[in-house]
């Protein structure tokens, strides 16, 4: 099993791999810039650990843990 984005902690960086999600969510995440090989860094975590804020392509994006779970890393 590949590591997924929800397993990262604040300050960790990784490269995006495949997205394992239904068509619509996959398209949405890719539209927001999660394409293969793109660099992401976890910037912040909410007090309860969900949602998380990640930086990619020069901007920051907030994601639910459930959404981060479908983004595989490599």
């Amino acid at each position, binding site marked *: 099993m590949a590591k997924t984005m929800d397993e990262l902690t*604040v300050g960790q960086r990784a490269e995006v791999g*495949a*997205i394992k999600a239904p*068509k*619509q969510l*996959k*398209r*949405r995440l*890719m*539209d*927001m*810039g999660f*394409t*293969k090989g*793109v660099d992401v860094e976890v910037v*912040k*975590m*909410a*007090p309860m*650990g969900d949602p998380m804020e990640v930086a990619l*392509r*020069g*901007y920051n994006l907030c994601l639910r843990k459930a959404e981060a779970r479908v983004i595989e890393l490599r």
Partner: protein
Amino acid sequence: MQTIALIGNPNCGKTTLFNELTGITAYVGNWPGVTVEKKEGMWNNIKVLDLPGVYSLSPYSPEEKLSRRYILDEQPDLIVDVIDATNLERSLYLTSQLAELGRSVLLVLNMQDLLEREGIVIDTKRLSLMTGCPVVSISASKGIGLESFKKEVEHALKENKAPACPLFSNYVENLLTTIIEDDYLHLIPSGRPQRWAAIKLLEEDELFLSSMPPIPEAFAEFLHQAKTNLRLHFEDDPEAIIIDQRYKVAEHIAKHCQTKKFQKKRFNFDTIATSRFGAIPLFIAIMGAVFYLSIGLVGGYTTGILENFFAYLGSNLSILLDSLGVFPLLSGILIDGIIAGVGSVLTLCLNSSSFSSC
């Protein structure tokens, strides 16, 4: 009469620009997704349309469907692509889709005033060369650059030149060329460019396919084979491959047109206030301070005054009523009931109002 359509990512300043142009005070909220329907206004005898904020033109979300259908069916004379200049790359991803629609496109770099603060410089000449669109810098909220915006719009309307389509990798380009050559592409409704249609066929775009007659068997077989080859070549599905190709174009353009002079200072109040361990203690501290201020400091003072006032009123009234020889039950209702009751309710009201005003 000519029509221009404002489109761009959520929260990039479309509606601010729209209001600035038309003088209509459409509601601008500081969060994405405020414009769900399109709005119309007039500016210098040009019809201006404010479309909802979108990141893409996918066939899934209602805003994206609306924006896409509008541009394809109503064919505005000019697409004004409003770009949050501090977020060039992601904005250019949308631009790469707008460029394929066969309409002329004007790129508006908004929030110019914020660029300096972020230490970003954008080479607009180069951006214009690489995208094939005229580019103008403005700050809609400060009203800067609107004169040159007006000039560019007039110029673009006169020229009416479609921008350069983003070029994908050779493998995808060759495939698109072959698809365009098929007779089936002659059946696409007017206003839809062939290249755009070929991409939609590869993506298996539901919205597009439902607007088309059924695909003949031979062509369907060819498309199926092409998509299988694509999957093998890129190890992903065609829709994802196209997105990836678009982002590669956006990345390439952003890299060549944008320079970051310095890294923005990353530590500010938010760093503590929204951090995982700082947030809740800070929240409790602020609420505690508010409570202490309103109930303790301000509240203690005002409560004292009110209580004294009502006690004074009550005792004076009881002396007066006694001297008049009023029935004790009636004086009891007046003094212990009405005055004392209203007094304590008022005190409570004042306390809570000073609490909420804090």
